[in-house]
């Protein structure tokens, strides 16, 4: 048990943080928001600098890092409010790499080489991970998928559909004539879509094991995105209340303000532990659905609470569009809903809440 970041993780954090501070000003995020698409330039740079290969084996020209290393990257991107399909593509590609056959893995190679963007398309109108209705029919898919992040921008969709009553994942090309994409507009101001498949050609990738891995991984990494938004909102607030003078002194010297900040920091600190623990456990195949759901529930709660307190302590300036706080309160709340809201996730915890478990789970160490 050691929560300190590894050397690799510190390197990832520092170099990505420096790069984003230098190359991605918040005004560019505003432009990307208005464009309705993703930050093409940033995505290309990340690909060229090799970051998209971070959690993939060196044999396929990745850098052989862990999923926890990837989570550090994703947290930094969330703290910069970057609008790129990093979570979606990594979750899809990691699932394909692990559960797909060689043909499917060519898509992963294409992601690393810079040609492909793959995004999961799971939810339907009922918004449920455990009740997918779309079914494969003679190698083709028909029906609607909702809430597909970056659905219009992707080259491929990794679509959840039933095969003989069991859930499975299929690759569908975005440019298939049977794929129609309509944009959805969300509080997070990042691209999302409703996708209609009309006899689209679907290539099988994997079955239920892969699907369950996909959801666990997506949920754990979405918790990290919530954490990133909350951390950034806390950092901005600490900075602001230290400088903002009223009644002749920085408002950060007032006890009421300090105590709000202390509560925010406590939520961030605990959300950090649980989110990274969930990522680590998924990476080592030790995670249960309940554990990941619990981490996401807390991250979702925390980001909404912390960003709302951040607004309270900023007052008027915090809600102005030229100020950068709204990125984190709005995107944070959207990420709080993504891959399972606090309520959905708590319902998963509730499902087995009468089962006894160890309060100090002791998984085997990764280093031995």
């Amino acid at each position, binding site marked *: *048990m*050691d*929560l*300190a*970041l*590894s050397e690799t*993780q510190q390197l990832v954090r520092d170099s990505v943080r420096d790069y984003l501070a230098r190359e991605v000003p918040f005004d560019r995020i505003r432009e990307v928001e208005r464009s309705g698409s993703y930050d093409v330039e940033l995505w290309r740079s990340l690909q060229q600098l090799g970051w998209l290969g971070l959690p993939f084996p060196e044999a396929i020209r990745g850098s052989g890092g862990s999923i*926890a290393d990837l989570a550090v990257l994703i947290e930094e991107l969330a703290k910069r409010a970057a609008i790129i399909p990093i979570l979606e593509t990594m979750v899809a590609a990691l699932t394909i790499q692990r559960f797909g056959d060689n043909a499917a893995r060519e898509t992963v190679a294409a992601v690393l080489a810079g040609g492909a963007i793959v995004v999961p398309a799971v939810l339907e109108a009922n918004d449920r991970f455990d009740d997918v209705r779309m079914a494969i029919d003679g190698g083709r898919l028909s029906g609607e998928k909702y809430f597909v992040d970056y659905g219009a921008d992707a080259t491929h969709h990794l679509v959840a559909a039933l095969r003989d009553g069991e859930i499975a994942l299929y690759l569908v090309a975005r440019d298939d004539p049977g794929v129609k994409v309509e944009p959805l507009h969300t509080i997070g101001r990042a691209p999302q879509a409703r996708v209609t498949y009309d006899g689209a050609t679907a290539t099988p990738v994997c079955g239920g094991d892969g699907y369950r891995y996909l959801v666990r991984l997506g949920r754990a990494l979405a918790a990290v995105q919530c954490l990133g938004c909350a951390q950034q909102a806390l950092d901005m607030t*600490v900075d602001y*209340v*230290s400088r903002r003078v009223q009644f002749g*002194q*920085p408002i*950060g*010297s007032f*006890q009421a*303000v*300090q*105590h709000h*900040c*202390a*509560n925010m*920091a*406590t939520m961030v*600190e*605990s959300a950090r*532990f*649980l989110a*990274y*623990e969930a990522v*680590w*456990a998924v990476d*080592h195949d*030790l995670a249960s659905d309940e554990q990941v759901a*619990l981490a996401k*529930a*807390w991250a979702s709660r925390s980001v909404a609470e912390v960003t709302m307190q951040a607004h309270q302590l900023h007052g008027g300036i915090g809600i102005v569009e030229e100020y950068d706080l709204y990125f984190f309160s709005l995107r944070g709340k959207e990420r709080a809903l993504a891959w399972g809201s606090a309520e959905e996730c*708590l*319902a998963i*915890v*509730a*499902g087995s*809440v*009468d089962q*006894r478990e160890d*309060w*100090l789970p*002791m*998984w*085997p*160490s*990764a*280093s*031995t």
Partner: protein
Amino acid sequence: MDYGWAQEYVDFREKVRALVDEHDSPEIHLEYSQEDRRGPRTAAFRKALDGRGWLRMCWPVEYGGEGKSPWYQFILIEELEYRAMPYGLLSVTSVAPAIMAYGSDEQKKRYMPGIWDGSVSFAIGYTEPEAGTDLASLQTRAVRDGDDWVINGQKIFTSGAHSATHVWLAARTDSDAPKHRGISMFIVPIDAPGVTITPMYTMSGLRTNQTFYDDVRVSSDALVGEENRGWYIVAHALNHERVGLAPTGGLGRSFDALVQYLRERRPEALEDPQVRMRLAEMRMEVHVQRALATTNGSIIANGGTPTMEASMAKVWSSELRHRLHSLAMDLLGRYGGLTRESGDLAPANGRLEMIYRTSPILRFGGGTNEIQRSIIAQRGLGLPR
């Protein structure tokens, strides 16, 4: 980053569980619930713990330890808290680290073995009637007289003084210095002439005390650390105390006791999705406590001293203590209010209502939660004082 445990820790926990299984009985808990918290079973368990060296294994070899990682103590305390077994509490988690950090070699050799085997136990003598949260304004005085110190004054909420062997006492040694810089720490034998103890009974059923010091004479080796540097020793001890006050085990045990009672006696309640959601919420909050406690453990295991993190864990666990037990009692309805004296009708042997009654203490004890939040903001986040 590694959220897993080396096999040695998993094995150690199994050994702790096995020993606790041997000693856990209704009788030992009854002993522990008595006013002096003592008895033959308690003594036997402390002796068995000491025979295995578990309370001292994380300290250096020259003081009887084994130089093991602090994670051993973390696991040990979590298990003992879960099972509500006696282990010496603040003597072990707060005073011992302070003696190890600031005491003389002679003091370490003299007191540590007794702390570990239970023959030495400390009551904490910080608070005075006029010095609570503003602890640095304390007025109990120690004056040098030849080689001795003579102590006069009064302490309040000296919990455990009636069963302790010593008081870990903060006293003013320089009245002219700024108030933080005129305090020193002393180890005062409870049976020293001039020490008087009078009981105060609290709504939790626990006894606390007032202690009076009337020309109490102690020798020069009762002083811990440097003269007038006591405030920093108190701060160090309080930091450890806060970590020590915030294990997850006791909260987890209450959660388990509630669920077990519902399963056995009120199975229809567990069919109710609303009840399950309330329980899920509490399970999450207990895991938040585990996150904060383990974060502290990781900082200590890496050689650091938690400050902000210790306060976070203390605030969260003490406030969750109230929320968790209050919800448990709500879910149990009128049964939730029955005390242990109601016998079989009292859920979980009255544990839940009893801990509800103790839950105010930890919110203000060990430094009020208001002070803790200021520590988080000022020392942790760097906000202006």
